């Protein structure tokens, strides 16, 4: 009995501190990385402005959320930000189409090499960076409201009688749900619709696609729209789950690229798999396994240390390590994407 209860406790412990947080974080990374990979597939450059596009969309959503909150409108148990989401998405679509029209189209017409695009996107990144800080400020903002928990740790403990609690926050459940839905819709779009197919054709072989009469402007436009929608979704979900801070969104660029490159850049499936791998590696490498050892090992065997592979301060370094290792060992990534 004691042994069974111990293993149950160990299971709940892992679910609470590793599985649930990593799934939620992985979903956010996957959404962001798919956006990066789509732009790379169609426009053939690494869009450094993606993190700040995300911050911009989230900022608009937050403003709209505040307006809704002050008008007394809420989404019941769900966060009000969900109601504000369409506005954020529309504003971001407008923004990326405008930057494409006034920045990237210029280089496309000249058929500039990818490195020029990258530098241009760094410029766009700094502009958006400044714009967001100007409008909402550099501070931490929490805009989560509604019911906080689907399952709270305390309730879980009381109803199961276990020593360990499992907490699933509404925002975590929401993140995973929305990510699955968004990814499913994206694949349906890419595989089944005419526009989706023409995008894939364009990504595979641009010249051949042009010969077949595919309108390149249209493909580029749709790619930007998709990237904007995914960016805002990722940004708002991340902000709801954790908190919104422009600097942190800018920093997310690194795990995004790590995930996209790990999965094979230009490959949407790869970006999703990569997102989850990066998230799980970050969480499992920085978790302290001592309590787990307490449950699973005979009492004399439990070590004194925390059994932590890396301090949580080094979480960010893990994306770097993954990025470097993939580029060294298998530059095309898991799903054989392009070489960056």
């Amino acid at each position, binding site marked *: 009995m004691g042994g069974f209860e111990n293993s149950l406790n160990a299971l709940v412990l892992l679910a609470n501190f590793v599985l649930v947080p990593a799934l939620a974080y992985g979903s956010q990374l996957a959404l962001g990385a798919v956006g990066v990979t789509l732009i790379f597939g169609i426009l053939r450059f690494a869009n450094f402005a993606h993190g700040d596009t995300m911050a911009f969309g989230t900022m608009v959503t937050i403003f709209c959320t505040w307006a809704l909150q002050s008008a007394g409108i809420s989404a019941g148990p769900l966060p009000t930000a969900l109601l504000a989401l369409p506005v954020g998405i529309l504003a971001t679509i407008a923004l990326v189409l405008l930057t494409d029209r006034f920045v990237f189209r210029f280089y496309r017409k000249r058929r500039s090499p990818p490195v020029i695009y990258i530098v241009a996107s760094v410029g766009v990144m700094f502009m958006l960076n400044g714009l967001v800080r100007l409008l909402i400020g*550099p501070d931490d903002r929490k805009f989560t409201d509604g019911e906080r928990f689907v399952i709270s*740790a305390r309730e879980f403990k009381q109803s199961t009688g276990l020593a360990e609690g499992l907490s699933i*926050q509404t925002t975590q459940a929401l993140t995973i749900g929305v990510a699955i839905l968004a990814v499913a819709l994206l694949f349906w779009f890419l595989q089944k619709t005419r526009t989706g197919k023409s995008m894939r054709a364009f990504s595979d072989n641009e010249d051949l696609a042009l010969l077949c009469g595919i309108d390149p402007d249209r493909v580029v436009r749709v790619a930007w729209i998709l990237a904007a929608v995914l960016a805002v979704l990722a940004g708002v979900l991340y902000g709801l789950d*954790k908190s919104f801070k422009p600097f942190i969104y800018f920093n997310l660029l690194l795990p995004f690229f790590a995930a996209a490159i790990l999965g094979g850049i230009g490959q949407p499936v790869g970006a999703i798999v990569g997102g989850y791998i990066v998230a799980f590696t970050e969480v499992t490498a920085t978790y302290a396994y*001592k309590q787990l050892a307490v449950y699973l090992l005979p009492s004399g065997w439990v070590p004194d240390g925390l059994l932590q592979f890396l301090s949580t301060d080094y979480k960010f370094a893990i994306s770097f390590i993954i990025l470097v290792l993939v580029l060294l060992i298998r530059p095309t990534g898991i799903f054989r994407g392009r070489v960056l």
Partner: protein
Amino acid sequence: MQNRNLLLILAVLIIAGAVYFMTAEQQKKDQDIKMGVILGFTGPIESLTPGMADSAELAFAEVSESGALLGGAKITPLRADSTCVDAAAATAAAERLITSDNVAGIMGADCSGVTTAVANNVAVPNGVVMVSPSATSPALTTIDDKGYFFRTAPSDARQGEVLAAVLKDRGISEVAVTYTNNDYGKGFADAFVAAFEAAGGSVSVTTSHEEGKGDYAAEVGALAASGSDTLVVLGYSDGGGRGIIQASLDADSFQQFAVGDGMISQALIDGISGDLTGLIGTLPGSDAAGAKMFLDLAASKGKDGDGPYRAESYDAAALMMLAMQAGGNAERETVAKNLMAVANAPGTEIFPGELAKGLKILADGGQVNYQGATNVELTDVGEAAGSYKELEVKNNKFETVSIR
């Protein structure tokens, strides 16, 4: 046409500039003394600093209005942002105050890391006195300050002992400790761990946390793995400390929280979803006669004097002006030479609201022993000896349980 417009604008600018500089010169002749107020108006303690600056300016205004300082000199306080965490930004701000604004002394800085940086890089080399109301790192006791650095807040070496005693008295014998990764957090944590273990307690784990992360669930996971029921958080109320407590509540990981002075803020209670009742903490402060007088004084000027480090800020500002008066001029050197003398016995005791009285005594050649709002008594290295309030959260407010 265009050229003429440009010329016109240029002329207006030149005249405006000239007028500005002339008035600036004029003010100097009117014995206008500039004092710097360097606090983290942005950054992890930005909710605390406006109240602190207001309190310091209360003292400046009191002295200016009295007309008793150096035969009627007026004080102009100049605020600058220390950011609390960015040493380079704080140093630049102090540099500006000292070299271009030519301040006579500096009230600040606030957080220990930036205070050390400003003292070492700018204030001490330029011979400008700094009186910090809130830098509490033990490391500041031993910096080579050449007699220019003072503080009205006591060292955390003392706070560590007090917090350890509070926990021991409540029957808590095992804790996990997390501190913000800077001079303040590290010094405080070291002092606390040493004192707690000396008192027979055990510390299961001590980890640092970084400021400005979105999510602290991973940090809490590591802390919870220690198996302790009590978590000691030595961080900031608007920063990582709050994130740690929020994540602990979300995971239901700890039964009891204990916090240091950087976490004592209503913003902590308001900013967290969940119940903090029973959270305990320590904050420099006392039930001295001066504390009540300071609250009344602040209230009479429409300010709220009840908040972290507000009384210390008032005292820091008051000390520098008394030192000027004692030396008979507003030179930087004068402030440094006389500050200890006005802060400690012998002399007439001076309390908040009585600065004019103190200035008159000094003008007549007498001596003062400034008590202020916090019972100021500087040790031989120029820092407050310190008494602490033990606080507990009840009904969503910090309430004082006892004075230690």
